[in-house]
């Protein structure tokens, strides 16, 4: 394991029945890095995150997090070691209030955010803390889903398309939020279609094509090859 490596994936493959969704993915993330997975729909990005957190079980290959072999850990054990998962549908509980949504995961890790800190950052959530989670707008639900894993004190955030369906002003707020999390040493792996956003928050990018890593790009390369990447993504 290279020095400072937090997450390491070697030859990860994943299947849905007979259909192969990921082929021999290998990647490495250092502590405090932000990395995006870009690729068109069906390229296997969500499967990648679901395999890491342990929700997708039909996998082969080696995954380690903080030196621990993930294949031996259940989804809840992975989360308690510091993986904070935000699914693409945001996963807000309708039968729990906003505050209960925040308090559901156990607080772990060296730096769990307090409710105060979260409410200071998102006054909307404080105002609606007694409302059912389902009564929030799409943008508020997204903020709640991310705030939930920060409250938990996760050291690695797994974010599945956090900007999807968000108004530009909320995307800006998300950039601020993720950069603040980064300053506190949080590592972030996110799926993103919005290249502007991706280059604003991430350090480097993996291009996923048909379940394989086609390329690794720096921010500079993404800017230069924007047209080509957008074509890959079918945007």
């Amino acid at each position: 394991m290279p020095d400072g490596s937090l997450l390491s994936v070697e030859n990860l493959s994943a299947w849905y029945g007979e259909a192969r969704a990921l082929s021999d993915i290998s990647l490495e993330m250092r502590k405090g890095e932000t990395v995006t997975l870009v690729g068109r729909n069906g390229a296997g990005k969500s499967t990648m995150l679901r395999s890491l957190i342990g929700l997708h079980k039909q996998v082969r290959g080696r995954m380690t997090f903080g030196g621990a072999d993930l294949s031996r850990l259940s989804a809840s054990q992975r989360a308690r070691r510091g993986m904070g998962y935000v699914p693409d549908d945001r996963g807000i509980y309708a039968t729990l209030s906003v505050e209960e949504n925040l308090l559901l995961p156990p607080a772990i890790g060296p730096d769990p955010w307090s409710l105060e800190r979260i409410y200071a950052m998102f006054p909307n959530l404080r105002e609606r803390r007694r409302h059912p989670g389902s009564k929030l707008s799409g943008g508020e639900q997204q903020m709640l889903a991310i705030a939930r894993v920060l409250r938990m004190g996760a050291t690695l955030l797994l974010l599945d398309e956090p900007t999807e369906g968000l108004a530009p002003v909320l995307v800006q707020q998300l950039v601020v939020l993720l950069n603040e999390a980064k300053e506190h040493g949080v590592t972030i792996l996110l799926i993103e279609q919005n290249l502007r956003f991706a280059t604003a928050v991430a350090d480097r990018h993996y291009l996923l094509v048909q379940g394989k890593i086609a390329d690794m790009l720096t921010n500079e390369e993404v800017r230069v090859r924007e047209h080509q990447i957008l074509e890959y993504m079918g945007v």
Partner: protein
Amino acid sequence: MSVVQLFNGLVTGSFYALVALGLSIIFGMMRVVNFAHGAFYMLGAFGAYVLLDSWQIGFWWALILAPLAIGCFGMVLERLLFRRLYALDPLYNFLLSFAVATIIQDAMRLRYGAQGKPYRVTSQLLSGVQHIGSTFYPKYRLFVIVFSILVCVVVWFLVERTRIGMVIRAATEKPDLTRALGVDVDRWITPVFGFGVALAALGGVLAAAMQQVRPSMGEDLIIVIFAVVVIGGLGSIAGSVVAGLAIGVIAAVGEAYYAQVSSTLVFIVMAIVLLIRPAGLFGSVEGA
């Protein structure tokens, strides 16, 4: 329709509520359609009977001891049997629970016979009748109504206002995600199963004094309870309680006006509810 008939309806309804509540909690968290729930209810009634008959232990103690013992028995069954099938289609656990129900019922029939056994509440406090307006009503039956509603309120409080309740609600709504958020759902499954079984047994203890204690008493009840849970909305706590009480009263009204239809009424209500709200009164489409 008289006050007495209305109260009889509430008594029946409060049983339904208690037993349905346990069934609903178990279904919500484990997705087990527990056909053995009626057998646990019957064991509760037998628990009260055996405690009195063999050890002269009266009603108040039975109210605590029988649900506790049968709840523990439920936890053992969960650990040994039901747990093994969670990964499979829920139909497998339904079949298993059907087998468990049949075995328990036949074992009790072998040991105690099919004949009903009388059970008498020994407490002075609960004997005699109470004036209600111009009529009288047995104190014990009033106790059953008040006590059942009290238990339902306590369960509601546990589910809505405590950390464990929050975990139950979350795991009922999104079991996988709840695990992925670091909640150790599996640690709660056995106790929650036991708790649901204990509620059925509690219903059985309360029923022991009002009907003959016999091995088939759960079998007769479970079908109605399934209808109650479906009307209330699968997995919904509030739905089970409201539908339980409502069905009790509706059946009593039916009995008063057109006795032949009384036992069918619950299924007619179920059909109507399903036509109008397929997820039940309090159910969400996701939860169903």
